[in-house]
């Protein structure tokens, strides 16, 4: 009786299902036919919208001055001013560095291990447009030494909307390798971009200028897109790119979460093959070559790898910069347990649009910061005064601190750095640090070897800062005073008398230094170890200065004397003869140095890269 009933009900159920299924199938067929017919009869005309950038919202560096419109990143917004002309123009957007010259200096950060080979970005900018569209093309108008753009990303957030950000996603539209074009002439760079399924009006460009001969300059960015989601996207099968996977769509937090659950799921005790026989240290060595997301994924595979991948010894150096788009507070809290031995941490560029908060960072610091020696926090806009206070309290051994372009940090936050008395390297490029704070820092951090105060506009009197450096920081090896507008010959003289070990001195665009006071000659005589000297746009550099450099600074490797009219070929020859280590010589816009002379000198001294920029 009952088996009959169940059989009958099963039979009935199957028939019903089959009918409904065929019904839906025919319905589906019918609707598809309808759509196809619809497509054939009247294709909806999708209007392509073309937009220039409306506003540059964020960037990691630029060449120009903070309140200027010459060579600053804000020039990228709006219509092009220069294109299709080529040359070194003020109306373009220029980054702070190019080539590998800055990486060769001892003042640069050491590379972090485990940086994935696909991450080469050195600088970035974020450009907002008026209207969100589904992008069909992105054109970058490069007007000088093109080839730096290596990644274009789109954001799902509308930066101009009043609503709070919800589920911010960054999608890579295009990624490529660092490149250099054959000529420095202007070009329109329009790589083929991926189709994405959200409308965007916020683009991010990441650049790498390491192969370029000179500064790259960008004039404008054009975003082409459609307002309605393209129909094709509905029928498109998502193509899973193997490369995408290895760069990973997964959140590190997801990986971390799964990690905790998978521990007890190892049913087959077949062992881990030869891995069981290898000594612990050897597996650690093997695993140490994996980038961090792979490390998290490997941890899910079995107990053995879980033990290895969560071993704090794997997390002595940690670079989270390549994963800036995906790092969240949750990721940080999952990494907490493994990072107790952390010594070098790179969180530059992270925390984009609220993904990481000050609170999340502070708790991470409190748990993992005890042994920290190096902390890279460039462009971390989530940082607050409280964060710096926590850093100062929990990281007494900190030797390197990078806060470049943290321009939203309030001036009083920098007072906490005073407590980091072991500091060797401090980067405050483009921050709002004030004079009182920097003077206190210099008083209490006598071990300073590398100091970057480039474009620190809130410091009123650099002579006083130089005086303090001379008094307290005798180990100073490199000093970056890019665009410090009121350093005089007195400050410079005090500086070179107290900091005898100086090897790198960046005095570009310091317009108050006058060669007629003899300050550069005094500098040359006082700093025999000098390897890098930038006197960019100091229009007073003259032949006697170069002669003194030739006579005293035989270790000189990088020299920039852009824009002076008072240097002739004779002193240049002398310099090139007496400084055999010279690798970089920038004589752009030096009126007595024409291209014929540059060619001749390049032939005589082939190891020196002589730069002569041009404009029209």
């Amino acid at each position, binding site marked *: 009786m009952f088996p009959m009933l169940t059989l009958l009900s099963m039979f009935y159920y199957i028939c019903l299902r089959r009918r409904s299924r065929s019904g839906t199938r025919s319905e589906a067929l019918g609707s598809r036919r309808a759509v196809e017919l619809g497509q054939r009869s009247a294709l909806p005309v999708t209007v392509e919208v073309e937009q220039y950038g409306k506003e540059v919202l964020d960037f990691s560096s630029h060449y120009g001055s903070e309140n200027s419109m*010459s060579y600053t990143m804000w020039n990228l917004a709006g219509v092009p001013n220069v294109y299709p002309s080529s040359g070194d123009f*003020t109306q373009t957007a220029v980054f702070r560095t190019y080539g590998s010259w800055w990486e060769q200096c001892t003042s640069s950060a050491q590379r972090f291990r485990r940086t994935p080979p696909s991450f080469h970005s050195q600088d970035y900018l974020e450009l907002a447009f008026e209207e969100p569209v589904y992008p069909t093309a992105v054109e970058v108008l490069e007007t000088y030494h093109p080839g730096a753009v290596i990644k274009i990303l789109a954001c799902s957030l509308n930066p101009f909307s009043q609503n709070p950000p919800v589920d911010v996603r960054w999608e890579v539209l295009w990624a490529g390798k660092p490149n250099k074009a054959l000529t420095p002439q202007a070009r329109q760079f329009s790589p083929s971009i991926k189709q994405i399924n959200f409308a965007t009006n916020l683009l991010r460009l990441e650049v790498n200028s390491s192969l370029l001969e000179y500064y790259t300059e960008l004039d404008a960015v054009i975003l082409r897109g459609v307002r309605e989601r393209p129909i094709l996207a509905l029928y498109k099968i998502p193509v899973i790119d193997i490369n995408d996977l290895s760069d990973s769509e997964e959140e590190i937090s997801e990986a971390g979460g799964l990690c905790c659950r998978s521990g007890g799921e190892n049913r087959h005790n077949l062992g881990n093959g030869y891995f069981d026989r290898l000594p612990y240290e050897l597996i650690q060595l093997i695993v140490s070559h994996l980038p961090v997301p792979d490390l998290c994924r490997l941890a899910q595979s079995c107990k053995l790898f879980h033990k290895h991948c969560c071993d704090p010894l794997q997390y002595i150096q940690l670079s989270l910069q390549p994963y800036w788009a995906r790092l969240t507070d949750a990721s940080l809290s999952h990494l907490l347990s493994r990072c107790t031995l952390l010594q070098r941490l790179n969180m530059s560029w992270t925390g984009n649009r609220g993904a990481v908060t000050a609170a999340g960072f502070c708790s991470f610091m409190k748990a993992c910061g005890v042994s920290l020696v190096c902390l890279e926090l460039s462009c971390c806009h989530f940082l607050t005064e409280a964060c710096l206070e926590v850093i100062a309290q929990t990281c007494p051994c900190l030797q390197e601190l990078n806060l470049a372009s943290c321009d939203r940090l309030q001036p009083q936050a920098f007072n906490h750095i005073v407590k980091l008395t072991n500091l060797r390297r401090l980067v405050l490029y483009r921050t709002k640090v004030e004079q009182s704070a920097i003077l206190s820092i210099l008083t209490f951090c006598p071990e300073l070897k590398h100091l970057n105060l480039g474009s620190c506009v809130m410091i009123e009197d650099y002579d006083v800062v130089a005086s303090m450096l001379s008094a307290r920081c005798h180990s100073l090896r490199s000093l970056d005073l890019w665009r410090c507008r009121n350093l005089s010959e007195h400050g410079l003289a005090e500086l070179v008398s107290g900091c005898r070990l100086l090897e790198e001195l960046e005095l570009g665009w310091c317009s108050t230094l006058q*060669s007629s006071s003899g300050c550069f000659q005094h500098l040359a005589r006082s700093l025999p170890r000098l390897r890098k000297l930038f006197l960019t746009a100091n229009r007073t550099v003259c032949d006697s200065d170069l002669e003194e450099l030739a006579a005293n600074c035989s270790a000189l490797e990088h020299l920039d004397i852009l824009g002076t009219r008072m240097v002739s070929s004779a002193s240049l020859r002398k310099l090139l003869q007496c400084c055999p280590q010279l690798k970089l010589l920038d004589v*752009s816009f030096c009126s007595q140095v024409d291209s014929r002379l540059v060619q001749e000198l390049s032939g005589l001294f082939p190891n020196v890269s002589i730069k002569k920029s041009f404009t029209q």
Partner: protein
Amino acid sequence: MLSVLSYGRLVARAVIGGLSQTDSRDYSLVSASFGFGKDFRKGILKKGMCYGDDACFIARHRCADVLGVADGVGGWRDYGVDPSQFSGTLMRTCERLVKEGRFVPSNPVGILTTSYYELLQNKVPLLGSSTACIVVLDRQSHQLHTANLGDSGFLVVRGGEVVHRSDEQQHYFNTPFQLSIAPPEAEGSVLSDSPEAADSSSFDVQLGDIILTATDGLFDNMPDYMILQELKKLKNTNYESIQQTARSIAEQAHVLAYDPNYMSPFAQFACDNGLNVRGGKPDDITVLLSIVAEYTD
């Protein structure tokens, strides 16, 4: 249908406009330029809006219309410096500042200061000096804000009479106040006035006011009554008529400049100071002529 609506709107506006005391329409300047470089061989127009060593610009912004003239000091030629580079770059920088909105309409001296600062930010070592005169019309407030450094200047003409004019700033004879960038070796001996030294003024303007901005090439050769005579011939407020009038003023000044017997204002001033001279003053002439009109997009 549409014309009925627009007609109705016009009528309503006229009625309301007539009833209310204050005029809430936005004003704008319809402007044209003309000029002659002293040296014909260089051609009349070089790099656009440059007449010899003079330079000028006309720029529109959402909230203001801005004009400017700059007279490059010719003495630099003797030292191998092209005087038109400084004045031309100064004017182009002012134009760019206005287009990007980096200015305050009520502070035209600020435009000069910022522009001068930007010149120093150029990698190219610029040298030279020039006078400068900036005129800003604030669309909403109907006020004209001006800044003048040197011996260029402007006239405001209403109902056939001059109601406002700028004052010349001179250190001594034929040496006006000037913005300059000097080579470092000559820094002490080259005249260099700060942009803050510019004279500034602000006043109301009405529809139909004519504003003439020019370099001293015009004012030294044509007295006011001749300029006013030419301006009387201006009947329309459209661009072509203004262009035509600017051209005729400039041409007349150019002819007078080379007349050896004519008692020009320049010669008159010299005589008043004990120098017995006659004739015009050959110089670069730049004329910017504008009329205050209603703002149309």
